[in-house]
Every structure is written in C-alpha cells, then in structure tokens.
C-alpha cells in the first residue's frame, strides 16, 4: 500500500541563474518501507526532501501523502499535516537552543495536543532512552555534542508516530556504534510499527542494508 507518491515533480532555482534542480521525478513509496536516497553532493537530494516534506511548495508536478493530495494546499494546512504525519530530521539537526533536550522532543507533541503533557513527557523520555541520550534530558539543547544533538533530533522526529520520517543524513555526525543504533531503530520502526523512512545518506554500507535504494543524479532518479 502506497503512502507517498509524486508525479512528474520538477523544480527550478532562479538565482543566480535559471537552473532545473529536480527533473520529472515520479516516485512511489509503500508503507513500512525503509528507503535510502543516495547520489553525489549537489545532485538535488535535500531539495527533493524539502518538497516531499511539504515545506517547499514551489514546484511543478503533484505530491500525495497518506492518500491526501498536498499540492496547492495553503501553509497552515500543510503545517498541521506535517505535525501529524511527517517527522523530519534536518541535514543540520536543528534544535531550539533555549529549550531543554526534553522540551525539544516534547514540543511537536504538545503542539499536536492529542495526549496529556504527562503522557508526552513519558513518551519523550522513552525515545531519548532508545537513542541513548536520556541522561541529557534536562540540559539546554545547545550544550550537547553534534552527534548527541542529531540523536535528539531523531527522537523529536519520532514523537508523534508520523507516517513518514524523512531524514537528511541522519548519521552524518555519528560514530559507527550510534550509526548502528539508529539503523536498528529505523529497521524496527519500519518493520514492526509499519512507519516509513526516507533517509538521505552518503554511507554506502548504511544504504546497502535498507529495503530500497533510490539513486539520484543531476536532478533525475536513475534507479
């Protein structure tokens, strides 16, 4: 059963000159799939991820997630949709620096307002524990190392049990122990909990163990 589908997505950048960064991308991803997106630096992976995550609306073609057509929807609708259906780990793992690690993880769930703050806190602590950063829960998030912050960002992406988790180089800053840890968590989420993961990676070993590899080159999907 498909959870995400794109039809003929193209995107242009106009600065400094007109340049087509995504070329006619048609892609279907099934529920429970653990997919890796690979390709040379500058081939358009991050750009595609921003389109898939609904944050970038300036494209041609169509995007559908969890049975809803999202192309042409307004920003507020898309925000609410992201909150419920999409977890995102940015290439540069952004946390809110003035908030504690725990608060950072809780905020999307508090925003969603489906569970009580106590339940949310409990769940956030569970996630932090799985990712091995629970001892830092009450520290300000900017007092953590790069790799620790990355794992907190992953915990935050998981908090609302989204249909799709999109990660832009989630293991870019991690040592091999933590890379394996993250890989195992993703595997469990996709296979046991039927969540879907799209992960951009430069790590060939990581990619080779995923269910499906999508290769990009110069704005096209080649494989």
């Amino acid at each position, binding site marked *: 059963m498909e959870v995400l589908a794109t039809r003929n997505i193209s995107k242009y950048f106009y600065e400094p000159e007109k340049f087509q960064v995504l070329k006619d991308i048609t892609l279907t991803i099934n529920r429970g799939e653990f997919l890796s997106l690979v390709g040379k630096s500058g081939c358009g992976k991050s750009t595609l991820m921003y389109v898939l995550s609904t944050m970038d609306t300036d494209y041609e073609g169509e995007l559908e997630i969890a049975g809803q057509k999202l192309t042409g929807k307004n920003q507020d609708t898309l925000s609410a949709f992201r909150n419920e259906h999409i977890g995102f780990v940015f290439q540069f793992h952004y946390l809110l620096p003035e908030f504690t690690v725990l608060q950072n993880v809780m905020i999307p769930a508090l925003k969603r307002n489906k569970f009580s*703050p106590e339940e949310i806190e409990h769940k956030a602590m569970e996630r932090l524990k799985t990712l091995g950063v629970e001892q830092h829960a009450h520290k300000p998030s900017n007092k953590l190392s790069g790799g620790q912050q990355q794992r907190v960002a992953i915990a935050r992406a998981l908090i609302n049990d989204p249909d799709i988790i999109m990660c832009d180089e989630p293991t870019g800053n991690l040592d091999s122990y933590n890379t394996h840890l993250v890989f195992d968590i993703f595997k469990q989420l996709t296979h046991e909990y039927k969540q879907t993961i799209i992960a951009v990676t430069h790590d060939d070993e990581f990619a080779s163990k995923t269910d499906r590899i999508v290769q990009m080159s110069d704005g096209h999907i080649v494989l």
Partner: protein
Amino acid sequence: MFGSRFKLTLEIAKVHLLSKPKQTVIAMLGVTFGIAMFIALVGLMTGLNDFTEEITMTSSPDIHIYKDVTSPRPTILQQTSPGSLTWVHHQKPKNELTKVRNAYRIMELIRKNEMVRGVAPALSSQVFYNYGPAQLNGSILGVDILEEDKLFGLKSKMKEGRIEELLATREGIIMGQGLAKKLDVKKGNRIVITTPEGHTMTLKIVGIFQMGIGVVDNVRCYANIGTVQTILQQDPSYVTDINIKLNDRHLAKKYAAELEAKYNTKAEDWETANATFLTGVIIRNIITYAVSVTLLIVAGFGIYNILNMTIYNKMKDIAILKAMGFAGGDVRSIFMIQSLIIGLIGAMAGLVIGYILSVLISKAPFNGGDIISLDHFPVNFDPKFYIIGVVFGVITTAVAGYMPSRKASRIDPIEILRGQ
C-alpha cells in the same frame, strides 16, 4: 483543548523572554516610565484643575446679570424708521448708570424658577482704600450678606470675625485677607475709602475673609448694600449686579440666554465668564495627554525594535517551529504574547511608580503665592486614570508588537533551512 495549546505558545513566549532578561527588562522599563509619568502628570494636572475649578466655581455665580454699558444701542433714526440705511461711526456710550432696572422685581421672579438655588443682589464700585499714607485700588461689594452666604458659603471663608457682625454694624466691612495684609490692618481698625467720584467714608473692619484666589482676596471688601448706596449717593433701589446659583450649573448657558431676552439686560453664564480659565484647563489636559502619549510612543518604538531584533535572531527557531507543525498564527501569538507580557508587567510597574510619585508630589511643600492659597500640590488619585494608564500601555505594546509578530508569522521556513 485550546487551553493547552495556548499554554504551549505562552510557555515558548516565556522562554524567549527569560532567555534575554536584560532586553526584556529594558523594553518593560520603557512602558513603565511612560505610564508612571502619565499617572504623575495627570494626577497633578487634574488635581490642580479640580482645585482651581472648585474655588473658582464656588466663588463665582452661575449666572451674573449686569448692565453692559458698551452694548450697541439703536439710534433714534433706526427706531423711527426700521430698515432704513443708517450708519453711525464710533458710537460713544451714553452717560448712564450701570444700574440694573427693577432689580428686586427681577430677583423675585427668578427666585420662583425651580432650577434656581439662590439669587443675591450686589452693588459694586471701584474704590481707593486709605489707611495712613497707604492708598490701594480695590473694589467694594455691597451685598445682602446672608443671601451672599447662601450662594458662596461666605461663613466658611471667614478668617476673623463673623458675617453677622456686618449686619450689626452699618458702617462695617469684611475685608479680603490679601488686601488686609497689604494695608497692614486688622479686625477693628478703621479705614477711609474714596470713590472715583470723590466721595469718602470711614468704615470699620468687622471681619477678614479668604476665598483662596488672589483676584478676590487682594482687592475685595464686602459691605452692606445700603452702605455702598450711601457712599455712591444713590437711592435704595440702586443695584448693579444680580448673582444666581443654579441647582445644575450646566443649565446656566441656556437659562442665561433666556434671562437676557426676557429682561433686556446682560446675563453672563459661568462658562463665558471663566472662558480663559476653562481654556487653561483644556490646554493643560492636552499637554498632559500629549506628553504621556509621546512617552508611550517612544516606549512602543523600543518594544518594536527589541521584538524585531528578537525575531531576527530567532529566524531559525521560527523555521523549525513551522517545520514541526506550527501555523503562522501560532508563531504570531508567540511574539504577540511576548509584547503583551512586556506591556502588562511594564504598565503595572508604571502604575506603582506613578502612584509613589503622586504621593511624593502631594506631600511636597508648595507655595501658591498671591494667586492661589496653597501649601502643597493637590493631586488627583482617581482610579480612572490608572485604568486609562494600563489600557494605554497595553494598546501601545500590542500595536508595537503587531508588525514584528506578523513578519515572524510570514517567515518562509524553507528559505532559512536551506540557507545553511
């Protein structure tokens, strides 16, 4: 459900404010200063206004009837053939008495009107006061002292002696305190007065009064109306003024016009008579509000700047919040709440400081000099102004916060996230 979502935006706003305490406090101080100044200024200004209005109103009649010598009079030609084209240049006033005709009859009729609280006759004249070598210009007011008391509460204004003593002493006067001080006279002294026509008379001071305003206390004496008629060598029907007090002072203008038409004399209401004073009140109010509003606008610009800076520094955070599902409106609320918190706390502190300032001002010694008898500033503590202050403060901060907040709500997250 709304409650909890609001709690989240409030929580985020709180964290933002607390993470930059210095900035937050400076923004608050701007509002505090504006409101405190407003409270202190408005308290002092309206206190002074009310005080002077009170003494001016109690010491002046609501309607004053007198004969206006300069009123234009029709020529015989105009009277005999109305509508004809005649023109008289530089018409001189007739040499006639400033007497109100049929004064006692008019008073009787006026007294019947239920709007009227009291009517009193008066006969005023310019005089010179002579006491030894000192000679001072002033006025003497012949009155029915008991009627006068009913209108202007003379009894409570007496510093020495009692008004009844005037009734017992035909050739007595009650003198204004300022005048008595200038002449260096006391109760019991005798002084000589001279009228412009050259008549003189010796009068005994039976009392000293103080109205509280220099223009009265420094020039005026009260005497029995009969005494003044004798000085001026006029008959007992000679009255120059009729003073009226109404139950509702605000009806004076209309009633004065009525009287003027009915009795063919000049009838002046208190608003017209005190026009300069009332203009002064308006100007003082304008200055008070202008200064306060200016201070608040400056405070508003402070908030605007600080919020703009905060938003500029928090672009990334705003982008992350939006990426995680915050709508534009949520982001706007986060920053609006911040400016409202700044405004509310700043305004509250402003009220407290304004109140303390007002108390200090009301305790400060102040010499009103000859013009007003005052030993400290009268300050108005009307809660109305405190409410206006808070409302003003919050509105200013809301307006100042709105534009930056709207800007924040429109930030496109993708621009910022990709920019890295």
